[in-house]
């Protein structure tokens, strides 16, 4: 484990140095990411400026949801470039063979493909929004709350990482571009920026049991904010919910394993 982390750190070190060689390009794309999500947030602000609140949620509360999910996604996004480009970079070119020739798990090597520094733009924007939300809300912070917030972020990173692993796994069957998965990744971020309680019950079920977006955002955040859940869930469930993200990642690795086995039996 520590050995794997050391290897990943080495890969990231190399990747970061490579990106810093093209400093202008890095600064521009990071700024682009920042502005992109900042403008999105401006839209949210305009909405609240006009209507005051959203189904009983204040602007600051929604900003908290927004900030957490964007930080989460930014971190996962930075770690998964290798999976995002898996079809075009590894399967089509046969470069996946190179990973199979090395004595390490293929998924670990792919995670090391790049540490995408440009995602710092979204992360920064998410952190600013989160900081503002925290200052605007009167949350009685204690160790348990901080721990749960960190667990929420960890579960969320695991969930989005799992989505990317799943997307890459599909490339073993089709090398066509998988636009449909963007519905879950970018669409997922959009969805989880708002409290789950505003959605129709059918969507709430899907986002809890199928694609557990609610479990890595809404439910634990409700506990962190210390408000009662309009959906009626209890504190224990809310605190454990982020583990669904870890379970989701586990399942995505099972799919990945099937894909690798298919690759090694067909040779393409």
């Amino acid at each position, binding site marked *: 484990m520590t050995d794997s982390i050391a290897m990943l750190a080495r890969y990231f070190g190399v990747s970061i140095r490579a990106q810093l060689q093209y400093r202008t390009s890095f600064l521009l794309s990071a700024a682009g990411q920042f502005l992109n999500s900042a403008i999105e947030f401006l839209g949210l602000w305009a909405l609240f400026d006009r209507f005051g609140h959203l189904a009983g949620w204040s602007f600051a509360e929604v900003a908290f949801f927004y900030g957490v999910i964007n930080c989460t996604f930014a971190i996962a996004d930075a770690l998964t470039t290798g999976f995002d480009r898996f079809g075009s970079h590894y399967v089509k070119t046969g470069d996946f*063979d190179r990973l199979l020739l*090395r004595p390490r798990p293929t998924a670990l090597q792919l995670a090391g493909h790049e540490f995408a520094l440009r995602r710092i733009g979204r992360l920064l924007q998410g952190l600013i929004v989160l900081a503002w939300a925290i200052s605007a809300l009167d949350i009685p912070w204690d160790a348990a709350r901080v721990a749960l917030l960190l667990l929420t972020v960890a579960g969320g990173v695991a969930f989005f990482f799992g989505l990317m692993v799943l997307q890459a796994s599909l490339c073993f069957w089709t090398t066509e571009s998988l636009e449909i998965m963007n519905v879950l990744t970018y669409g997922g971020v959009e969805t989880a920026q708002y409290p789950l309680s505003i959605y129709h019950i059918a969507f709430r079920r899907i986002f809890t049991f199928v694609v557990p977006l609610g479990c890595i955002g809404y439910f634990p955040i409700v506990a962190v904010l210390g408000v009662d859940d309009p959906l009626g869930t209890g504190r224990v469930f809310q605190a454990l919910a982020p583990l669904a993200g870890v379970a989701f990642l586990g399942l995505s690795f099972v799919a990945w394993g099937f894909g690798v086995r298919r690759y090694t039996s067909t*040779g393409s």
Partner: protein
Amino acid sequence: MSQIEVRSLAKVFRVAERRAGLAGAFRGLVDRRIREVHALAGVDFDVERGELVGYIGPNGAGKSTTIKILAGILTPTGGTCTVDGLTPWRDRRRHAARIGVVFGQRTQLWWDLPVIESFELLQRVYRVPAPVFQRNRDRMVELMRLGPLLDTPVRQLSLGQRMRADLAAALLHGPKLLFLDEPTIGLDAAAKLAMRDFVRTLNREEGVTVVLTTHDMDDIEALCERIMVIGQGQILIDGGIDDLRRRVGNSRVLIVDLEDTVSVAALEDGLRGVGTRDVRVTGRRARIDFDAGVIAPAALIARVTSRFEVQDLFVEHPPIEHTVAELYAEHGEGEA
């Protein structure tokens, strides 16, 4: 136990047949015709420690399939294979830590990184202890003459330089078995010679077992004591170069340097009734193709020296390309 043991190894690929045209593509969506391709149809061989084996065959004969299975990146459909006691595709990671692989057409290095940084990353990936790594690295840098190239990004290397770096990279973790897939492809004459030198040194001095696939018969003649020829998924010949030649008959060439220029007609006249196949003359040198089973080389030489003034003469085997081409023709293979 042999280092590599391969028994009845079989690989069947199921290939969806494509139909012509757009309409055909749509039909293919609902009604897929699957064709079975037998890339390997029962292959058996052993490789002992320290051997240098040439593995040759036309495109599509099953060479790459065999190498991929031995390297652990392809699962066979039948048969068994162990390398140092491990089954490559089942113990992929442990197996990968013990072997070195170089694909001539594809680099194992990081395209944008200086060579030395690729080496250092590989040290981590293969968990090579620092003192072992330093020793192997220094040895390889010296052997492959990589010193001046260490700080150059891989993408700026010439093909020959890149192959040297790739070969070094494959050996940093000290594997005792090396698979080389077309290591001289695309290299210029000097780089080819250098590459053969490295491979020979590795085999003789470091005791590394080498399995080498190539299309270049000069590689084979320069390096391999043993050759395996594969065609249509089966091993056609497994033996020394002499076995290969014997298998396709007794073709020989007698090369004669004459005192004076002699016309083809005069030569043919002098050899009438002996059973030679073909006579060519360039200047004072004559090349006489014959079958050693029809006329013994000694008898032919006696005949030539009795009729003509000879400065020098020697008997040659035909180039091995011809031998292999004849063998493929015998087995109905297209390309040689």
